[in-house]
């Protein structure tokens, strides 16, 4: 036992029970002996620990840490790094995502000293992984090779599918690829795996069959019509209805003709107009309901036949139904819009438009509907969308702002921004603080003066003072954004 161990044994047990045995090879310690054993112990312990500390040997370690990989991209400027540091210390998620986005846009990398903090943060927010990894550059990749916690962030995406271990997303992605390149191969895989999956997964995986369905898929899809899950059966029917000449499509078209007919009516004595006429007591085969079509209308003012027609529309799509009724697509939509039942069933029409990416109907609905859902914008081209922003910003400013904020960091038009800000000044609690910060990133610089005018408005209302606080924060975000944007490359 070493002298230190001896001392510690004695310290733990007490000198009454055990006194350390000091070898004669340390006469200097023996010299410290006194009549009192406690005093002797304390003196000897002090000197021994000092000798141990003062005489510590150095160790050699020939190995080291391999140097960092060479970085070819330029680093973010010192001033911008200070901004990033502030963003990280204050936990400002909105500004962090923006900073990383701009950093990648400018093809810059963050300086290495903040890379650990960023990688640690990303472990908790894997959603932002790809842009963050890019912004961390070679220093991040190098640190990933050294730290097992960060290594996982740098693991390449799964290339070979492992049905046992792969996530649903990866499997879906793999199946979609198969569906694009060799559709029959995708069906073979689905036939093999579907019996082992639960209903929710079956539904997710079968969704890939929506991609260009053909007659070759029919047998497989028909086999799934006996699936236990109602949702799976509905999906299968939807896909079968898309395939030209399938029994499902034929059945739906026949039913459509049974429930709705087109009559020509004279309009202003000179022209004729096609009007939809729904059969009040139409009888349709029971097999139609097995596709998932609801049998009875639960709305007082909606006929069963109307409900069936709208549901069949969602299966077949506007183009096919219009053609079957020998109407123009726009004419058919006008017919539907004139029905008093339209308001009740408009959600079905909107979902059909989105499902079939029907741009013509989407535009028409955005104009005609009183409260057109903002989701219809999603299928429009950027140019078409711009035309609707101003009017929507007057009726649905929050929804529009949310929609615009989803689409990158593009600045909104000044007039649109003003409508949104004016609405918020009257209803500041409709959104949370984070919304304001995010919104500020999308506001054009011109709105700064508008924001400043809000700051100087006299209003004792409690809500307005909350809004003024948010305005102050928005001004800060805009100024910070300008600093980041003007940062030296």
């Amino acid at each position, binding site marked *: 036992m070493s002298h230190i161990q001896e001392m510690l044994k004695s310290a733990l*047990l*007490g000198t009454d029970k055990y006194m350390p045995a000091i070898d004669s090879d340390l006469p200097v310690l023996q010299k410290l002996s006194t009549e*009192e054993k406690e005093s002797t112990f*304390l003196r000897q*312990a002090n000197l021994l620990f000092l000798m141990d500390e003062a005489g510590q040997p150095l160790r050699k370690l020939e190995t080291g*840490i391999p140097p960092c990989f060479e970085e070819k991209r330029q680093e973010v400027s010192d001033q911008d790094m200070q901004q990033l540091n502030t963003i990280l210390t204050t936990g400002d998620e909105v500004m962090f995502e923006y900073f990383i986005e701009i950093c990648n846009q400018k093809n810059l990398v963050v300086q290495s000293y903040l890379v*650990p903090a960023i990688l640690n943060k990303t472990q908790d927010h894997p959603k932002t992984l790809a842009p963050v990894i890019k912004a961390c550059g070679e220093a991040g990749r*190098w*640190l990933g090779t050294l730290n097992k916690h960060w290594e996982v962030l740098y693991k390449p995406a799964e290339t070979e599918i492992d049905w046992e271990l792969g996530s649903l997303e990866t499997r879906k992605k793999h199946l979609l690829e198969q569906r694009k390149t060799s559709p029959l191969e995708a069906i073979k895989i689905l036939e093999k795996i579907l019996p082992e999956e639960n209903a929710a997964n079956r539904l997710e995986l079968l969704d890939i069959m929506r991609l260009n369905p053909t007659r070759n898929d029919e047998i497989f899809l028909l086999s799934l019509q006996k699936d236990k899950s109602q949702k799976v059966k509905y999906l299968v029917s939807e896909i079968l209805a898309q395939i030209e000449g399938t029994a499902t499509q034929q059945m739906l078209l026949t039913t459509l003709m049974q429930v709705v007919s087109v009559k020509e009516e004279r309009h202003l004595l000179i022209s004729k107009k096609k009007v939809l006429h729904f059969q009040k007591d139409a009888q349709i085969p029971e097999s139609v309901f097995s596709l998932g079509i609801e049998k009875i209308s639960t709305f007082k003012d909606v006929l069963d036949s109307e409900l069936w027609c709208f549901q069949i529309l969602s299966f077949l799509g506007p183009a096919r139904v219009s053609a079957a009724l020998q109407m123009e697509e726009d004419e058919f939509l006008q017919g539907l819009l004139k029905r008093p039942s339209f308001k009740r069933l408009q959600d079905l029409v909107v979902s059909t438009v989105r499902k079939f990416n029907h741009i013509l109907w989407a535009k028409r609905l955005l104009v005609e509907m009183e409260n057109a859902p903002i989701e219809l914008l999603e299928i429009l081209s950027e140019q078409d969308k711009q035309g609707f922003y101003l009017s929507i910003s007057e009726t649905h400013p929050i929804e529009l702002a949310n929609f615009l904020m989803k689409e990158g960091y593009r600045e909104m038009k000044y007039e649109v921004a003003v409508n949104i800000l004016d609405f918020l000044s009257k209803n500041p609690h409709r959104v949370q603080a984070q919304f304001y910060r995010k919104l500020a990133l999308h506001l054009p610089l011109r709105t700064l003066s508008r924001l400043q005018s809000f700051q100087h408005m006299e209003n004792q209302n409690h809500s307005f003072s909350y809004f003024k606080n948010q305005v102050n924060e928005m001004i800060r975000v805009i100024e910070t954004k300008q600093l980041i944007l003007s940062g030296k490359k």
Partner: protein
Amino acid sequence: MQINQEQILKLAPDESSKKAGQQLAVSAKWVVKCMHEKALWGECQGSGSTPYKTIIDLQNLAFKCSCPSRKFPCKHGLGLFLLFCNQQNVFTAKESLDPHVAEWINKREAKSESQNQPKEEKPIDKKAQQKRVDAREKKVDAGIEELSIWLKDVVRMGIAHVPQNPYQFSKNIIARMIDAQASGLAGWLKKITDINFYQEGWQLETTRLLANIYFLGESYKNKNSLDENWQKELDIQIGWTISKEEVLTQPAVSDQWMVVSKTIESENNLTTEKIYVYGTNSNRIGLLLNFYAANQIPKQLFASGSMFSGELCFYPGVIPLRALIKQQSPEELNFKEEMGITRLNEMVNLISASLSENPFQKTIPFVLSKMKIVLEDNRWFLQDETHDVFAIKNTEDLCWNILAISKAAHFSCFVIYENKKVLIHAVWLNHKFYSIL
């Protein structure tokens, strides 16, 4: 004045001030923003009708604000300074100071000058003074005697039970030492409660502290047989204070001082600020120790990584470390290629020498150059060019930060040795300074 956002934020008294300061670093919030080589000033529109007037002394960093906040610096001071750091272009450059700014700055300058002037000595009643000293010495001697008995009792019974209630273990004797006006000894005893008793090694640390305290008490008893430096050293260790005036009579060391570390600890309404400065020419390290009671305003504000020219007077002692600033003026940060020690064996030799010279020195600061950080079996080390390594005390997260900063290349650093390990406080390389703690 060269100061960055991180350094400004380190001046904030708390997290909420930091956040509030950042929110005020907006040009639109300031109706007046002016700059001059001596000061910055601005007027911030708050909720009231009159804007708050904020001034920052750039020569000898200090803040003044007309807001009612008792925090120092307040959010307006931080906000204005951050705005200056981020957007200097929004400030109006002034050739002369505004009257209210000039008044404050002149007052500060005058005060600083008067402090440097030797004060008129008041007549001292030497008899009464000696009487007070004698009375205190008696109290201290009695306290040390009692401490000695307590320590012997502890080692007689053994320390196995200490982890069960470490606070209770030393509570009474600490109170007794405070009564005996031996606050230094009370401070040593408090270190026992700071030991992590859940971690292996507490036995060694506890025994070492007990033995050291006993040795200190015994040394104090025999101090009259020692030289003057040792007598001063023991007085300080026991808790005798030395007046600032006396320290300022010591020979001054003139140098360009780099602020290599600034740490703040708060306990029972008392804030202790430790600022380590490194003389880039003399290679001397000084510790500026400041104590603030609640709401007390710091006299000087230093940011880590900044530099000043000035004279330091060191407290007397065996190895003088604590110092006072006699005179100072700001200086641009200037990194030398090589600072301090470049070999770890030299550091180990200095540790041995320091401990031999002053065994009561528990921490020893060093400035090291050409160091690398290395990892072996989840343990971090400093490594020099000869591949000698020395254990690091920093947490794992901080070690990864140091590695990321250095990219496995050589760097300079400020470290504090304690108990066979070094704690890295700051790292600098490629002309950039990084605070680690």
